[in-house]
């Protein structure tokens, strides 16, 4: 097989075309940014087309291109289209395309615009390559390419971006190193690098260690507790487009996809590992959502939700029941949809107002009506409000917990439901403080960058918002055509017939009946509208606010900021203090690890006094030890 045939292979095209496009975009970044700007959506669209073809007609034979063979160790580029892999590739290309479109308006004219597009293309190469990978080393290679692209994209941000970028790469790099070690141990013990030929039952310490290291890699990428803390830190100063591309969508697809693949297909888990997954899932849901509630910056708040939602996916997979797994995978897709949309809206808000500080925003519903609508839909979706997509997948995860039946799973269910309610609560804060209320305090904000709602910017949001609705109302379609095939591809016994008619046997499989329910909800909403109109017909009674005798009507300084909605939570004894500490990194393994490492470094440094005679004595001790060792043992 010559090089040209390899490149033309349907499995290789979606990997290699973005790679070349990225190279062109990188070279053209400074001299001709327009080239970069145009080539990235084209490459993403092409990759999407090929990924769809792969999903619909997966080639029977994997593509196997040996790259490097050193004695017994072969590194090969092995690509095969499993249903889950093709689904993730499809998702990555889809979100890449949307972000490339969004960036046409959001990044235009920026100094780093060309590089943004270049790294976007390379992200697609890495993501699609990792999704289709069937070789451990090739998987690692692509996986780390995605980490590198995220880091480089974050360094393009402003303000405190370097710190966030470094923290991100440090934590993801920990996961990557764990994966490297796990891969080395698997190669050493199993003697193969082919993922599809691995079938390992956990039980021995080594298999536990390997599985846990893959889990760490997946969790660091997806952002589950305790490897999550890079997401909020990086979000504070990153571009919204970058966050919509990687942490919101592609990182989740890759991380949860890897977790599903290695938890269900490669390794066979025992009860202890599944319990661990459920615990991580539950803790992630509740800890991150509590942190989200007390945030005052839009992007940081969204970032904590991006962590919290991972908990549902991990919990679903951890239940080990078919319905829970399907729910977890569906939630992965749904999360990518609504969280990208939310970050798109956050970018629009930030560029419009010049800040993402919730205290300085307000009243944007008048200037950004479409953005508001999309934000509203996706905020309701993430909060699990029926009939939107987030509700369906959460519902499936709940069913999975119930099906699993253990005390832990029941506890997980309670946490998940409670977390969902808190999510809704915190998005009330977002909607209220960003879009509603008065806009008078905007002058205190930063400098607005771009006004209005250009088509390139609003179109991706609308597409995603429509998907939020569609995947909720006709949930049977994506479940039947996307998620269930992916789950069955992993060996999960899902009774596919049950999805055939959407809601038949719904009680048994946990799917609710979305179409009639949507009708009822719409009826309810219409009824509410009717009452509202009727209510407006009669004049409302206007009266002064009771302020305890203080004189403060018409004082512009008086306002009731939505950011204070959950001050009660912040002021709770115990929990509130913990949350405040969390803001300063008390639960951040990055900081804790840094402190421990720093102490160890200090111990070592104290030994290096600079006294020459000490150094000479080290040498002499060393040579004596070596000589004694050699002579004594023989």
């Amino acid at each position: 097989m010559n090089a040209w045939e390899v490149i033309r292979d349907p499995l290789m095209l979606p990997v290699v075309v973005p790679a070349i496009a990225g190279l062109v975009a990188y070279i053209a970044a400074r001299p001709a940014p327009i080239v970069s700007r145009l080539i990235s959506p084209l490459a993403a669209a092409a990759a999407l087309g090929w990924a769809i073809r792969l999903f619909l007609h997966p080639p029977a034979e994997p593509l196997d291109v040996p790259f490097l063979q050193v004695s017994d160790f072969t590194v090969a580029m092995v690509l095969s289209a499993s249903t889950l892999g093709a689904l993730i590739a499809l998702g990555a290309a889809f979100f890449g395309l949307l972000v490339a479109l969004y960036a046409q308006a959001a990044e235009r004219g920026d100094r780093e615009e060309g590089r943004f597009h270049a790294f976007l293309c390379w992200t697609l190469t890495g993501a699609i390559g990792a999704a289709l990978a069937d070789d451990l080393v090739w998987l690692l290679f692509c996986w780390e390419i995605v980490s590198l692209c995220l880091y480089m994209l974050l360094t393009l941000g402003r303000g405190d971006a370097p710190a966030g970028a470094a923290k991100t790469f440090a934590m993801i790099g920990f996961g990557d190193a764990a994966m490297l070690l796990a891969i080395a141990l698997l190669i050493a013990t199993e003697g193969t690098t082919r993922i599809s030929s691995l079938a390992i039952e956990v039980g021995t310490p080594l298999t536990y260690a390997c599985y846990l290291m893959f889990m760490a890699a997946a969790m660091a990428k997806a952002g589950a507790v305790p490897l999550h803390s890079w997401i909020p830190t990086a979000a504070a100063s990153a571009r919204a487009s970058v966050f919509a591309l990687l942490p919101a969508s592609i990182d989740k697809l890759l991380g949860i996809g890897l977790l599903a693949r290695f938890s269900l297909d490669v390794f066979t888990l025992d009860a202890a590992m599944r319990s661990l997954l459920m615990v991580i899932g539950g803790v992630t849901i509740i800890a991150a959502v509590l942190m989200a509630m007390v945030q005052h910056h839009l992007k940081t708040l969204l970032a904590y939700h991006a962590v919290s939602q991972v908990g549902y996916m991990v919990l679903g997979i951890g239940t080990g029941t078919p319905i829970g797994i399907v729910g977890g995978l569906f939630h992965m897709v749904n999360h990518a949809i609504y969280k990208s949309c939310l970050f798109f809206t956050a970018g629009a808000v930030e560029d419009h107002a010049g800040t993402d500080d919730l205290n300085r925003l307000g009243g944007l519903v008048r200037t950004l009506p479409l953005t508001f609508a999309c934000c509203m839909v996706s905020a309701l979706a993430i909060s699990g409000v029926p009939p939107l997509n987030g509700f369906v997948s959460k519902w499936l995860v709940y069913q999975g917990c119930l099906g699993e039946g253990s005390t832990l799973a029941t506890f997980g269910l309670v946490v998940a439901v409670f977390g969902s309610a808190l999510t809704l609560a915190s998005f009330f804060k977002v909607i209220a403080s960003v879009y509603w209320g008065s806009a008078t305090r905007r002058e205190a904000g930063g400098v607005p960058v771009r006004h209005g709602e250009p088509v390139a910017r609003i179109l991706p949001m609308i597409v995603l918002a429509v998907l939020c609705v569609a995947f909720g109302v006709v949930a049977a379609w994506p479940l039947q055509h996307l998620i269930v095939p992916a789950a069955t591809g992993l060996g999960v016994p899902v009774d596919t017939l049950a999805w055939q008619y959407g809601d038949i046997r719904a009680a048994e499989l946990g799917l609710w009946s979305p179409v009639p329910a949507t009708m009822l909800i719409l009826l309810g909403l219409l009824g509410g509208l009717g009452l509202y109109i009727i209510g407006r017909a009669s004049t409302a009674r206007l009266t002064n606010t009771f302020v305890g005798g203080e004189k403060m009507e018409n004082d512009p300084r008086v306002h009731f900021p939505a950011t204070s909605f959950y001050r009660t939570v912040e002021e709770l004894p115990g929990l509130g203090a913990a949350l405040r500490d969390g803001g300063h990194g008390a639960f951040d393994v990055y900081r804790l690890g840094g402190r421990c490492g720093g102490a160890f470094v200090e111990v070592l440094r104290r030994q290096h006094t600079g006294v020459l005679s000490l150094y000479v004595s080290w040498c002499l001790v060393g040579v004596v030890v070596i000589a004694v060792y050699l002579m004594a043992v023989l």
Partner: protein
Amino acid sequence: MTTWLPLFVILPLAAGFLTPLAGRRPGESGGAARGLALLVGAVLLAGSIALLGSEPAVYWIGGWPGADRPSVGLSLVCDGLTQMLLVTVNAIAFCALLYSWSYIQRYTGRALYYCLFLLMLAGMNAVVLAGDLFNVFVFMEVAVICSYALVAFGVERAELEAAFKYVVLGSVSSLFVLLGIALIYNLTGQLNMALVAERLGALGTERGPAVWLAAGCFIMGFGLKAAMVPFHAWLPDAHPSAPAPISAMLSGVVIKAVGVYVVCRILFNVFGLNTPAGALYANVLIVLGTLSMVIGVFLAIGQWDFKRLLAYHSISQMGYVFLAVGVGAAVLATDGPRPIAALAIFGGLFHLVNHATFKSLLFLCSGSAEYAAGTRDLHELGGLKYTMPTTAGCCRVAALSIAGVPPFNGFWSKLIIVVATAMAGYWILAALAAFVSFMTLLSFLKVQRYALEGPPPERIRAIHETPVPMRLAMIGLATACVLLGVLVPLHRARLIDPATRTLTEPRLYVERFRPPDQPHMGTTWAAAVKELQP
């Protein structure tokens, strides 16, 4: 091809002694010296590249040994390992010379600088070519004495102190090397490495403790030159104190040519691993490598001096090489599966070449930052990607390479080392290697964050990119970092594989380079051995 071999020593030696003459002329700014040095560097680089992949060759100086004459002559031998080292040394030397073209103009005594530089280069080339132990010692001393002087080249307080420590510790190690050579000579009556190997092999199990003592001396002596923990204490002072191109040479190639290379050559090819002591040598290498790898990286991560941070990483990265080579040696010594040994050694040697490229590049980048900004304190640097885009880009490539991020070269060698260590059954060491890789990533994230990113501090906002020769040198090395990684399948057959074979099939060395028989000398060494036996 064989007749070229002495040129690798003669050319720099001759040019080295010519440069001070060029500097004597009144009004001379060192232009002639730097031109001559760069020319020599280019010729040597071209020659070493042409030599790659050629058949193993031996050159007898003066043509002394013949069919009927005793081997009193000196030989230069050139096999795969030597070729790999020659290319590495001369490539880095060429880049350093190119870089020095502008950089060293800020110093006085430029002609002397080039003199020392070229002598150091001649010493290193001769060490990797030498076929006998005593020449290894002599030329090692040539190289390191020049490096002592070059470390002190700035003649400030810190430089002199660093050089003094380096001299003292270096001399201690040289003494041990000399002691080892004396022991071996006493035991075998030979200095030619092929003959020594043959006779040590013939002694078999009767070799006695003197051999092991000699091995201990060599490991310590050359281990100090390679900066293995606990013999590392001179390096963090010496490497940062030298001018940047010299730092690049010291960390990039000197510790390898007079340290790692000689240890490998002596333990694999001369002492041999198929003896009971073989496994012990391997264990010593593994322990030294692991200690260096772990302790080096922890010391590095706490540093705020850019060059000192890099210097500690040299210790850590040399630890990787020792670990990999040691694992290969352990597998060979215990008659384990040879493919695993080959994989480990391949990884180690590949990492050696890679480290030469990215570490030299990092030192050149730190030198550029210092050249422009006047500081190498990471607290005071920042925003170089705005003010010095070329330097920052090259620095980024090198930092990602050393951190083992794909698609750069460090990724592949670290991957192979970790996989080979795990395959050989050293799971804990594989875990440590992966962990150190992560720590390396952390400390280079720190470098990028504080040196390259962020807003430039007020004081260095107006700095400019360095002169063209310096940038060319950095771009050349950055390209090498990328190409060595992306084109592994293409270059390995000529660059790494022959070198690996030299170590995995240690007996080849004797077969290839053994001088013709000299019957009358056989009795003397046998008699000497008899006398030594208790």
